[in-house]
């Protein structure tokens, strides 16, 4: 301490503490430095120079830092014979400087006390850094006194320190009095140290200002009143957009909670997961406090307490404890949903009576000290009255029931609460030591609307660019340099477009994580032991696809657990499979598509049973030869269900036909592989992105339409020989020996001015779910990549049109939907039943 001039406490801690930390970090950087990494060394050089800025000219440390900077410069410039050795020495030297930085004085405490006294005179009660540095000084004195066995002195010093802390924490009513009291202690200490007075006299001089009674915080202590008030519906207040953001953020946190809790269930000491769950509750509580969301605050506060205990190592998160936290997560989700609903409704928050069950349970777990008695725990949580416990204890002494059993028998406690209390008791006994590394994320969150706007704007840029580059005026310039610049502009625009598209891509991770929770819940519900695994969670899909694939996946995963996995474990064992079943989700790229597979190692699909059921339901006729694939595909037919019994889990009236329809709406397909007794694999195939497709632009009259290139088989000019009409109503075209129905876009859409004579027009053969039809258009205008735009709510369900596209001229082009067109034609009586 001796060589640091102290003007005020703040200066002291600033200079000494800062320099120490700085040196430490510089030494670490030097240790890690690579002689080949010149930018790294340059950065180090800068840091060393910067580090000198706060130091006085005369400082030895400053000189040493400047020396070090010089040495590094020499290394960078190659002026050093052995750079590795030089850097190592430098690190060593600086490390020494570290050690030489002033430590607290050992012998001469008098100087320290004098400094404290001086600082105390100058310090203001709201100068927290100064108060903190005084606190450090008192700690040093206490340490010194301990070492010297001057325990009374140590006590006085540490009490003065505590009082300083109380001032910092605004827990002291009269700060000036507290400071005077500390001053008095310092004077007493000075006299002990300087004059060798008896230490016991010092004891008289302990700081005496009482620490103010801190008002109990409402959120911590007000459970009873809050519980009573909870029955009243609360109206949401405050900034709606903040509330909206809160809902979104809380949902994100809670979903992450599910996954992390699952992780914790298998590994209760998983620190990352533990911290992430803690932080979720912590953040939700913090924000909810501002938004006056009483119930959310209350619940997340209790959940946070439980997690805090787990973090500190005094509670092991396992079994029932995790179940209760899951309960809390679910309830929080419901509460957050209620905020959402209130925002979009009348502003009133729904009332959740479950709060009064879940909160006490959390309290039970969060508040169970090691060695606590069961009765005390239950009473503390407010689940049982003290009287009930007492009378149960009395009756218990006459019988041979345990307390918990007695309470349940008397109807004073719910079995579940007793079980939780017992578990909490046990968990508290077997705590653990926790560490807290943090979870890594390296993403920036962006408002999806802004993202869409960015992508839209890029789309406009692309169009504007192509209009400019193709403008006759520009071409007419005949300037080579302008052409070069335009092609450069073109290249950049395209890169930007690709980048824009990639921004829409999100990993399927979150969706998969939800399935983990689902499988867990299903396992509990059905009593089946199921292990869940995922691969390829980082596989990316268009954001809108990810949003819409959730429901079909839920359904299929449900099916896998409910129907796929054997009900009896014995059946599995008999088939030579492990007792614990396995459901796995995989995502990967394949052939320009994304594949998502749901694997289960259950009983597999029973082809015969499916066929029999399909015949019974009239889906197929008896005796139709079917491949395995075709037979399995029958389960996607409307009205098909293979479940022998309708269960709570899957029997919800929504069939696999809806799943298939949803996936097809995403321009995807679903396929099944299965082996009886071994398991099944459901494969969902999805396009990489919904947003961009290859399209063929066709003209009909004055209108133009876009046909997805993928659905086009070929295009031909019909000849009189290949054309035939049926009953004067329908037209057929002979396409390579196959008769294909021909539809005129002009008549389907009522477009005037189109070519009447089919032999003058163009027939485009398209594939509609395995069936071929011809569409007659006037001519083909060309092929291009198009960005699909929704026509909005207004136009949804429009037959024959699946969306719009912004064409290069800035106009909207309509995208044709082949199966819709076929329906349209059939509805108009234009199509023929070929069967």
């Amino acid at each position, binding site marked *: 301490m001796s060589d640091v001039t102290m003007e005020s406490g703040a200066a002291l801690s600033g200079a000494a503490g800062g320099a120490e930390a700085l040196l430490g*970090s510089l030494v670490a950087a030097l240790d890690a430095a690579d002689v080949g990494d010149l930018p790294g060394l340059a950065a180090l050089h800068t840091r060393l120079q910067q580090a000198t800025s706060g130091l006085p000219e005369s400082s030895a440390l400053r000189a040493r830092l400047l020396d070090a900077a010089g040495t590094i410069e020499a290394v960078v410039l190659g002026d050093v014979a052995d750079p590795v050795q030089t850097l190592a020495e430098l690190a060593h030297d600086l490390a020494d400087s570290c050690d030489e930085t002033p430590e607290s004085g050992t012998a001469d405490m008098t100087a320290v006390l004098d400094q404290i006294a001086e600082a105390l005179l100058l310090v203001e009660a709201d100068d927290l850094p100064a108060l903190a540095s005084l606190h450090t000084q008192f700690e040093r004195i206490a340490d010194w006194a301990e070492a010297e066995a001057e325990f009374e002195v140590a006590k006085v010093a540490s009490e003065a320190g505590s009082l300083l802390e109380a001032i910092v924490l605004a827990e002291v009513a009269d700060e000036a009095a507290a400071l005077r009291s500390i001053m008095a202690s310092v004077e007493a200490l000075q006299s002990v140290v300087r004059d060798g007075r008896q230490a016991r006299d010092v004891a008289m001089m302990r700081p005496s200002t009482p620490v103010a009674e801190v008002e109990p915080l409402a959120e911590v202590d007000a459970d009873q009143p809050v519980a009573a008030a909870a029955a009243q519906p609360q109206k949401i207040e405050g900034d709606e957009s903040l509330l909206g953001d809160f809902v979104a953020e809380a949902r994100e946190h809670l979903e992450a909670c599910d996954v992390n809790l699952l992780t914790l269930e298998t590994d209760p000491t998983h620190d990352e997961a533990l911290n992430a769950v803690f932080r979720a509750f912590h953040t939700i509580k913090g924000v909810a406090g501002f938004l006056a969301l009483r119930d959310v605050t209350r619940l997340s506060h209790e959940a946070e307490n439980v997690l805090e205990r787990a973090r500190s190592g005094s509670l092991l998160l396992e079994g029932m404890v995790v179940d209760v936290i899951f309960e809390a997560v679910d309830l929080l989700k419901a509460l957050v949903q209620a905020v959402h609903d209130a925002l979009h409704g009348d502003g009133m928050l729904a009332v959740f009576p479950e709060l009064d069950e879940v909160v006490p349970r959390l309290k039970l777990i969060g508040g169970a000290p090691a060695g606590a008695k069961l009765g005390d725990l239950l009473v503390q949580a407010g689940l049982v009255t003290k009287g009930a416990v007492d009378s149960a204890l009395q009756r218990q002494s006459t019988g041979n029931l345990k307390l918990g059993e007695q309470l349940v028998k008397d109807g004073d406690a719910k079995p579940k609460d007793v079980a939780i209390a017992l578990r909490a008791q046990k968990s508290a006994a077997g705590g653990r030591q926790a560490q807290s590394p943090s979870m890594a*994320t390296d993403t920036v969150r962006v408002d999806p609307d802004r993202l869409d706007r960015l992508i839209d704007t890029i789309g406009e840029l692309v169009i504007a660019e192509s209009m400019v580059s193709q403008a006759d005026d520009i071409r007419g310039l005949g300037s080579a340099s302008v052409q070069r610049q335009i092609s450069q502009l073109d290249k950049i625009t395209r890169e930007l477009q690709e980048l824009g598209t990639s921004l829409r891509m999100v990993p399927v991770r979150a969706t998969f994580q939800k399935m983990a929770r689902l499988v867990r819940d299903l396992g509990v519900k059905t009593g089946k032991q199921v292990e869940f695994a995922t691969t390829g969670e980082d596989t990316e899909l268009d954001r809108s696809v990810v949003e819409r694939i959730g429901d079909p996946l839920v359904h299929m995963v449900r099916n896998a657990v409910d129907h796929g996995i054997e009900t009896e474990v014995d059946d599995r064992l008999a088939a030579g499979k492990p007792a614990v079943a396995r459901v796995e989700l995989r995502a990967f790229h394949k052939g320009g598509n994304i594949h998502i597979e749901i694997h289960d190692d259950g009983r597999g699909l029973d082809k015969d049973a499916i066929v029999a059921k399909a015949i019974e339901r009239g889906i197929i006729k008896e005796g139709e030869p079917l491949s395995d694939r075709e037979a399995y595909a029958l389960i996607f037919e409307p009205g098909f269900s293979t479940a022998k019994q309708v269960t709570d889990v899957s029997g919800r009236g929504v069939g696999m036909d809806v799943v298939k329809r949803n996936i097809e709406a995403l321009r995807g397909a679903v396929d099944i592989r299965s082996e009886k007794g071994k398991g099944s694999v459901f494969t969902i195939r999805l396009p990489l992105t919904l947003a961009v497709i290859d399209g063929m632009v066709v003209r009909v009259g004055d209108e133009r339409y876009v046909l997805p290139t993928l659905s086009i088989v070929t295009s031909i000019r019909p000849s009189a020989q290949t054309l035939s009409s049926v009953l004067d109503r329908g037209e057929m075209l002979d396409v390579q020996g196959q008769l294909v129905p021909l539809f005129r876009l002009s008549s389907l859409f009522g477009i005037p001015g189109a070519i009447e004579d089919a032999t003058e027009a163009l027939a485009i053969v398209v594939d509609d779910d395995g069936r071929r039809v011809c569409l007659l258009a006037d001519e083909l205008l060309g092929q291009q990549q198009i960005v699909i735009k929704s026509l909005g709510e207004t136009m949804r369900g429009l037959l024959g049109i699946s969306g719009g596209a912004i064409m290069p001229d800035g106009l909207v082009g309509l995208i044709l939907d082949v199966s819709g067109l076929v329906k349209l034609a059939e509805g108009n009586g234009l199509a023929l039943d070929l069967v």
Partner: protein
Amino acid sequence: MKALVVDDSGVMRRIVIGALAKADITDVVQAGDGQEAVAAVVEHDFDLVLMDWNMPNLKGIDAVREIRAMGCKMPIIMVTTEAEKSRVLEAIKAGANNYVIKPFEPQMLIDKVTDTLARASA
């Protein structure tokens, strides 16, 4: 007056920014964790930092240490919750100038900011 608001919750950042706006502090940069905060401090000159405590990647208190280790002197106010109150002193020793406990009234934050800035410039 340029301020850095560090919090892993976007909503919380908006709340803090909203309060700052009432004190006419509108030039605000946001950071979502301690690492981002340190990076922001490297990139900009701030007159004020509002730092959350519990964040992924780098905790608030460690971010304060790093910022001070870089030799930056701007006032830092810790935005903490009741749970971290016992460690407030530690944060101040690490280099924070003041603290405010969530949830707070906007005026309370403004007062803290005003006091802290006044003290820092004194």
